């Protein structure tokens, strides 16, 4: 199974041997190594699968400017990975833009997903009318200009970072030595697809039970966005973590893992697996 083309092209890796499969999807700007603190905690109870989006980490899948111009292309990649894993309905945990990607995938193929956990999600980043996304259209254009001019600079930013963790040597063996790799040529396209997306209309079509995790003080996904999503998803609960920032799985992995484990407690058997 792990030799399937989709799995190889997206650098799919596995941790843990639990009965319930969990798929972790990283957000914009990084790769699967961003799960380095959360994944081992979840691997105690679940079979955790990690992958890299096209252009990130060790993904070899080709970037298609047309197909990946919107998040639908990334959702198709995700569905291909889910089918290739062939683990039955799985728990999808998506951070940031991967939350939207997961929503699109679950709307299209609900049978592949048993639960959704969306970490600091946002269906739209640009303000519109009464909707507060947190940014103006000019802010997003300025971001794309910032990325565009720094395409060469990314090469320096991608210098290897040693990820030693003496308490968990298998982590270094499982994950890449390089941290948060994002191909500069893909970065602008992925950023445009991410920050100009509007998936508000997709929310009512996602019937999979969903946990929304937001942080008290997230400069990218304002608190109002969590409530907005909870009110429009057919079956969703919202939990606000004490953690701040946009990456609670890095800044507060214990709190994040506890919230996820609580949401999935009925899936964990009496033997803890």
């Amino acid at each position: 199974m792990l030799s399937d083309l989709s799995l190889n092209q997206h650098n799919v890796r596995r941790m843990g041997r639990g009965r319930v499969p969990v798929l972790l999807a990283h957000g914009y700007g990084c790769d699967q190594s961003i799960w380095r603190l959360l994944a081992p905690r979840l691997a105690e109870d679940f079979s955790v699968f990690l992958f890299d989006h096209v252009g990130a980490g060790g993904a070899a899948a080709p970037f298609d400017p047309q197909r990946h111009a919107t998040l639908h292309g990334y959702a198709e990649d995700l569905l291909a990975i889910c089918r290739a894993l062939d683990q039955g309905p799985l728990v999808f945990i998506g951070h940031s833009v991967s939350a939207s990607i997961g929503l699109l995938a679950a709307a299209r193929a609900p049978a592949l997903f048993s639960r959704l956990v969306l970490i600091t999600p946002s269906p739209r980043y640009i303000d519109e009318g009464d909707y507060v996304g947190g940014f103006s259209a000019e802010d997003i254009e300025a971001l794309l200009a910032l990325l565009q001019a720094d395409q060469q600079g990314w090469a320096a930013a991608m210098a290897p970072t040693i990820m030693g963790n003496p308490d968990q040597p298998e982590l270094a063996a499982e994950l890449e030595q390089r941290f948060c790799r994002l191909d500069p040529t893909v970065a602008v396209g992925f950023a445009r697809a991410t920050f100009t997306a509007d998936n508000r209309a997709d929310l009512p079509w996602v019937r999979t039970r969903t946990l929304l995790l937001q942080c008290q003080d997230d400069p990218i996904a304002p608190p109002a966005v969590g409530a907005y999503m909870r009110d429009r998803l057919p079956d969703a609960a919202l939990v606000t973590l004490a953690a701040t920032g946009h990456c609670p799985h890095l800044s507060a992995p214990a709190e994040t893992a506890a919230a996820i484990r609580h949401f999935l407690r009925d899936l964990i058997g009496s033997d803890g697996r």
Partner: protein
Amino acid sequence: MAPADPADSLEAFYEDAPCGYVSWRIEDGAVLRANRTLLRWIGPGAAAGAGRFRDLLTPPGRIMHETRHAPRLRAGGPVEAVALELACAEGQRLPVLAHSHLVPDPRGPGAGEGMLVRTSLFDATAYRRYEEGLLAARRRAEAAEAEARRAQAQAEAAARAKAGFLAAMNHEFRTPIGIVSGFAGLLRTEAEAGAPMAHRLDWLRDMEAASEHLLVLLEDATLFARLDDMARRMSLRVVAPRRLIDAALILAAPVLERQRIVVVTSALEGALPLLADPAMAAEALACALREMARLAVPDSRIRIDGAGQPGSIRLTCPSLDLAEGALADLRAPLAPSAWLSRGLQGSGLGIAVAQRIAELHQGALRIEAAAPGGLLLALDLPSPGPD
């Protein structure tokens, strides 16, 4: 060495460094210290409101910080050359490159929590300008490469067109030559046998028609072969459609007379000028006119309209109705399906010549069924711009 000058202390070196320095707590982003250089960059108003590191940044800068800078620091850092953007006084933005590393907070334990971040910020204005120049140069290079590929594709298409032309010529010439030699052989045989020749007038007429067709083929083939040279010598001018039509009528006169075609022109005085090489455009129009005349029955009428559509000279023969298959063959005269089905009624090479000349003018030769009936050949050429 002279004793140390207090004005050149480490403190002064830190405060007035050519880059901005800021120390902040990773757990909540609280800024602990910033040097004078950074405060001067962002201005006193912005400095007063910057309680946290991300408050120093514009919204795009915050996105970059949360998605690229902070995660790498959380992983243990160091982080080098991340593009950020400072929010300065009066709405100004300063692009910077950030280098950050973690040091233990003397007040807190361990790694990951209670760590301080020391960030050096370098004014990236010149760097951004250089990057933009590099990107612009790359875009120009890519455009040049695309243009070279397009030119190569055009050259390859021209080579293929020539190969197709030669293949069509092979068949076209064989047909009339076969007729002439075949009937000539029969005549010789009968003459040698002493047979009377008066009743063989039909053979002689066929031989004459085949000879004339050969001449037409030679003219068309010669014109087609000259096209490349004509293209190199192309000289575009603003020309009135009337002038092109008059020249084309002279060039096509022999065929028009032989077929006894009546040509009617209309709306020429009000026609808008075209941008074309007059000699080539007249030749294209003549080729289309000759082909239409050969396909039509004798005594037919052809109307030439120069003002119906801007940039288009239209030839219409109401009595010439072609089936869809015949129209398709006419549109692709050098395709095997077209020349394999032709006899002496027309080589179609004139259409190929007219099409090629139209393409060289960035125009087209349209071949359509006319409404309410008949055949329409429209030579579409560009119009001159406002200059």
